């Protein structure tokens, strides 16, 4: 499916794989070259990775496995090393660990470059109901941040708009591309909705009004507004052509026929239930993003078949009375409850630490391979991409990486090779380059 996006870069694949390695070595030796690493060329030759421990992504593990991929797709993944016979290009991964490319399921990566410099921020449009705005076309493949995320093992992302009540449409991209068209895995995947909050807004409570009443009223009003918008756009969709074009309602159209998913950002148990019941009234099975308190209502979520993108395990408990490690435990509680979930972290540059939050989930009760799944295949499943990517299985994209040690632990995470759809990704980044530059300053040889 994604092949058509390659067309733009095929002509650049004049560098053979071996030449490419040579170039990388030159770059790493010479600290003077300021790199924004170029996207890797299309896979030309069949490649085998042999001897590594394969964390498949589906909860299983293969000791001393063998992976063969060609034309960007995995041909074989298993324990039979004979499958690699006769393949010229091979990587000996003995003692190394191999993981599926990890997926950041909700991030403004590529839409923001420097948090506090407004000119570099493109993830929040003005207005309240913005279902028509699309993250994809603002996704900046040349962001200096992306290579820093990639080099810790995150190779795909759902880039999302923020702000407003309906923020806009997300898209799923791979993290090594010349432009957003090349980056696409799935365009315009879903609509992101911020569920209203019944809590008082930040700041001092007004003493003149009765805060409790007005807050309850405000909450209800905001839900009503949402309801009106959904009803109106649904009615609008009944006609194929409208004499008066409404871009917002047009964008909502794909929700009604199931072509797009509805992602609802909400954290508290009661609001999660309210938001799911709201979506169900419109025959939509939503995906919960946030879900800090999803652990309290696992039965509800399971019964309604609602998956959760569990955001930011590294959070303080919502309340003083809660277990001090409540957030750390959330993932394992959802697993025990049988809820389909994946992990995400806030922000863009922070995405490089997603892998360690999976590690944290593992430290607090989630099995190791489940932790791997929680940032790979589970994310793919939630986005409906499990047939294409998310695990190291034959037929899927060859998007995976090799780490020297346990990738989920910062002590040993060391990504030495990464492939996105079979392309051998350059793992250098701006920060490594600065490191080399200044190391050389202090250690002239």
């Amino acid at each position, binding site marked *: 499916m994604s092949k058509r996006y390659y067309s733009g870069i095929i002509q650049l694949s004049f560098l053979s794989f071996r030449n490419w390695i040579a170039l990388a070595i030159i770059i790493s030796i010479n600290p003077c070259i300021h790199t924004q690493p170029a996207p890797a060329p299309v896979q030309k030759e069949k490649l085998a990775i042999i001897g590594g421990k394969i964390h498949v992504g589906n909860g299983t593990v293969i000791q001393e496995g063998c992976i063969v991929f060609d034309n960007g797709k995995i041909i074989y993944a298993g324990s039979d090393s004979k499958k690699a016979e006769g393949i010229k290009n091979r990587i000996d991964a003995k003692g190394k660990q191999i993981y599926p490319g990890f997926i950041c399921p909700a991030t403004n990566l590529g839409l923001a470059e*420097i948090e506090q410099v407004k000119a570099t921020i493109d993830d929040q449009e003005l207005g309240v109901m913005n279902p028509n705005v699309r993250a994809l076309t603002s996704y900046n493949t040349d962001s200096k941040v992306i290579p820093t995320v990639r080099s810790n093992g995150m190779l795909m992302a759902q880039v999302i708009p923020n702000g407003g009540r309906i923020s806009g449409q997300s898209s799923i991209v791979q993290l090594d591309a010349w432009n957003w068209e090349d980056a696409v895995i799935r365009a315009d995947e879903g609509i992101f909705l911020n569920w209203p909050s019944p809590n008082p807004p930040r700041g001092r409570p007004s003493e003149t009004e009765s805060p409790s009443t007005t807050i309850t009223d405000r909450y209800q009003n905001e839900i009503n507004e949402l309801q009106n918008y959904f009803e109106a756009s649904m009615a609008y969709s009944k006609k194929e052509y409208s004499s008066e074009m409404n871009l917002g309602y047009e964008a909502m159209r794909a929700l009604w026929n199931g072509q797009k998913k509805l992602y609802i950002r909400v954290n508290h148990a009661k609001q999660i239930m309210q938001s799911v019941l709201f979506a169900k009234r419109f025959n939509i099975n939503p995906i919960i993003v946030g879900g800090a308190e999803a652990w309290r209502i696992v039965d509800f979520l399971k019964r309604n078949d609602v998956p959760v993108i569990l955001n930011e395990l590294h959070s303080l408990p919502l309340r003083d009375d809660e277990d001090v490690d409540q957030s750390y435990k959330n993932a394992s509680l959802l697993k025990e409850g049988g809820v389909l979930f994946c992990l995400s972290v806030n922000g863009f540059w922070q995405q490089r630490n997603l892998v*360690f939050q999976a590690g944290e989930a593992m*430290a607090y009760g989630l099995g190791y391979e489940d932790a791997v799944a929680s940032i790979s295949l589970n994310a793919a499943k939630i986005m409906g991409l499990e047939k294409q990517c998310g695990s190291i299985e034959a037929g899927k994209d060859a998007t995976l990486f090799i780490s020297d040690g346990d990738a989920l*632990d*910062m002590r040993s995470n060391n990504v030495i090779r990464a492939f996105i759809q079979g392309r051998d990704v350059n793992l250098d980044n701006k920060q490594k380059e600065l490191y080399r530059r*200044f190391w050389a300053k202090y250690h002239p040889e």
Partner: protein
Amino acid sequence: MIRFYLALLFCSLVSLQVILSQVTFPVNGIRNPVKQLILIQNAVIHPDTGVNAITGEILIHDGIIQELGKTVNHPQDAIIVDMQGMNVYPSFIEPLSAYGMPEPRRTQENQGNFRNTNNAMISTKEGAFSWNEALHSETRAVTLFNYREDDATKYREAGYGLVQTHYADGISRGSAAIVSLNQANEHELILKEESAHVLSFQKGMSAQEYPGSLMGAIALLRQAYLDGKYYSTAIKPKEVNLSIEEWIRLQSLPQIFIANSPLDILRANAIAKEFNANYIIKGNGQEYQRMEEIQKTGAKLIIPLKFPPVYEVEDPYDVLQIDLSDLKHWEMAPSNPALLAQNHIPFIFTGMDNKDHKEVLTNVRKSIQRGLSENYALYALTRGPAEYLGIQNLSGSLATGKLANFIVADGNLFDEKTTIKENWIQGNRFNFIKQPHNPIANGQYNIKMDSLSYLLTISGSIDKTEFKLEAFDSSKISIKAKLSGDYISGRINRNHPKGEILFAAYKNQNTWKGTAQMENGSWKEIEFIRLSNDVLSKSKNDTIKPKENIGSIVYPFGPYGWKTKPQVKTYLIKNATVWTNEQEGVLNNTDVLIRNGKIVNIGKNLTEKEAILIDATGKHLTAGIIDEHSHIAVNGGVNECTQSVTSEVRIGDVINSEDINIYRQLAGGVTTSHILHGSCNPVGGQTALIKLRWGYAPEQMKFENADGFIKFALGENVKRSGDNRAGRYPDTRMGVEQTYIDAFSRARDYDQLMKTKPNETRHDLELDALAEILNKKRFITCHSYVQSEINMLMKVAEQFNFRVNTFTHILEGYKVADKLKKHGAGAAGFSDWWAYKFEVYEAIPYNGAILHDQGVVTAFNSDDAEMARRLNQEAAKAVKYGNVPEEEALKFVTLNPAKLLHIDNRVGSIKKGKDADLVLWNDHPLSIKASADMTFVDGIKFFDRNEDIKMRSEIQSERQRLIQKMLKAKSGGEEAQPFQSRRRRLYDCDSVGE
């Protein structure tokens, strides 16, 4: 009947009755000579606290008690008031109110949204007053006082005779006055023109930005004392400052301080002690939560009687919003007065926080049910306030020569059924005959009308009458009626097709007689015949309440608080992998003995009989984590953002020992935290170093004898890049440099003056702190990012002949590592943060590795309440990014910050003689799998995973108990209110405001 007429007579004469023989103002009409002798007879008189009641008489003349006793003189011309069956008590005194004061308002100039920062530094008050509007000692309540009939009525009905009133705004609020609640001209109501100096930590309506934090308010107050001293002793003050003059004058009055939390009481008291003042401190009703510390202050308190309502707890998810501390306070609040009394803490009551003054007596009664003696309750309402305010010769008890201020009640004042019938103020009688229900009417009656006969039951208490009508043949029937004194009217519904019966009756001895208009319109006689008093006596029996089961007080008051504070014990930790951070490196299968808070032995196969053994097989023992940059455990804001130099403010003044994050961080192995001022200004405030002694009070948390530090900041934050309110100098990095040069030049000049002419020099807290830096007695930890500014500050320091101790954040430190080393500065940064602002766009996670490689003492810190819980993982990132050896990486969060804070002689490594600040990890401490099993501070086990799990279930069961209790209270008729969730603020460097 006589009483009724007398009341009428008095009420009509009220405004004239207290007029003294001569006044300065004209009277519209003829002079109305009034009999001014009143004789009260047959009353049960409670003249004073601690004195037995007598049945006797009071003779009043001209509003003053002439005589009081079993019998007194009976002048012929006295009006005689028979008070048979009535109890007489001194009227209450409200020690703190804003009665008769104008509403505090902002000045005209500040009505808009905001003033630009430049203007916000200047007072909007015209004249030679304090530079800061929040210090307006010149305000005199007496000049603002106006009689307010409505408010006075409410006070009188609640039993009050006098109030102290003040202009409730600002930090120095000027003088308070004592006024009578009588009905008269202001001239006659003012009993004491200046009775107290009132202070608080609240800036109030000031149009100025400073102080923008609690620590700023404290600094301002401290400087006010110093300025007062300077002004009164300076050989020749160079200025006339009316506010300071008044401040000095008011020092001879009682000093009343309004505090809003138990910790604020401690803070206020600390200031009082510092300047040899004595504060009478108004609390907030939570004093029981820090009883021991409050008791030690020795301060007298003014305690409010506002108890939280029952909360709505019907939705199990909504209930989650209510914190355990709120649930527990709901239960404990009525016990506060009794607990204070049991701990011999002197206090009086105020109704200042109650919207309805009558709540005071209701809540005093609740306090008595929880063990407060009636005697003390009366004291805290009457004699006590009189004594505190120095007016015991005027009021507070009933005796010859004192004001005839007393209340008349129909029983023991503290009995739930008793009502205050009358309140006499300066001999002026206020009669509250509008009681909606008279319990005397309670009982069963046989109603007869036409040929019908029903059974009526009247019941109810003070403000509500209840009627129940039954037919003898049990046919369906109902009544709606209104009882008003001796008159009853209403309607009876017996399901008659034509409608209902209307009736009206009046009391005629033991029966009631009247007429009923039947459904068909015909008029019939109606009669109520009293059957018995059974109902009344039965309801009395109901009032005997079973003893309440009340939860325990924990420290801090909330989840994970201790019932008893953990104590130092002797522990022998056996067979651990010990990361010594010393030359010995990592020792396998090693024992560590801790005793009296210190590490006393490290070795193999240690034994110690008295020690508690801890099997640490397979576990790792490290020194406690030290967070060089933290903003937890602070009250009232971490930034005094209002000026570019605020070295006078001190985080140490505002440590919040009750912050749950202390406990959460113990669970992450943190034992010492450096609590910093924010990064809003080039020179921020003085920092505080605390050990995470969870449960202890702020002063007890402070790291003993640690060197003083101060927070500086550079770059975008101090330029206020993200703030629309530009205008505060500096606006560029160029200006930042000049701000420093100016500040240190001023400090140098000041230091010189202080050393040569100490008596003639104004003590300036801002310059004191800067001079300490010049004299190498205070050390800088400076928020910094880019290399240019780091280099600049080092050069400024060198110019003034000192060194920058630490650069914090310092994400571009790797670019000037050699210069840092040469200067002698250390670095404490984030492991891998970047891209959150322009000045960190060149930040790299290899920063720590390069700095370390260049010999700079390097630490990783949090600046974040969440991340501080896993600084061990942050240290591990130094292994990932730059291959720092594991032992060295661990030092980034233990020994190295200890060095930066000059406490490495006490903490930071596992060495004989050092403090037993230790963490026992369940795994390799740099591993993602590691979590703390136990955390010790000074040999005290403040965190234990197993204990923690126990506490979790205790929290849940305590919540459950309290929720059930609330449901019961609500079913029992208490009015429930929705809980208003408060968002507790987490601070980081950039947090502005409280």
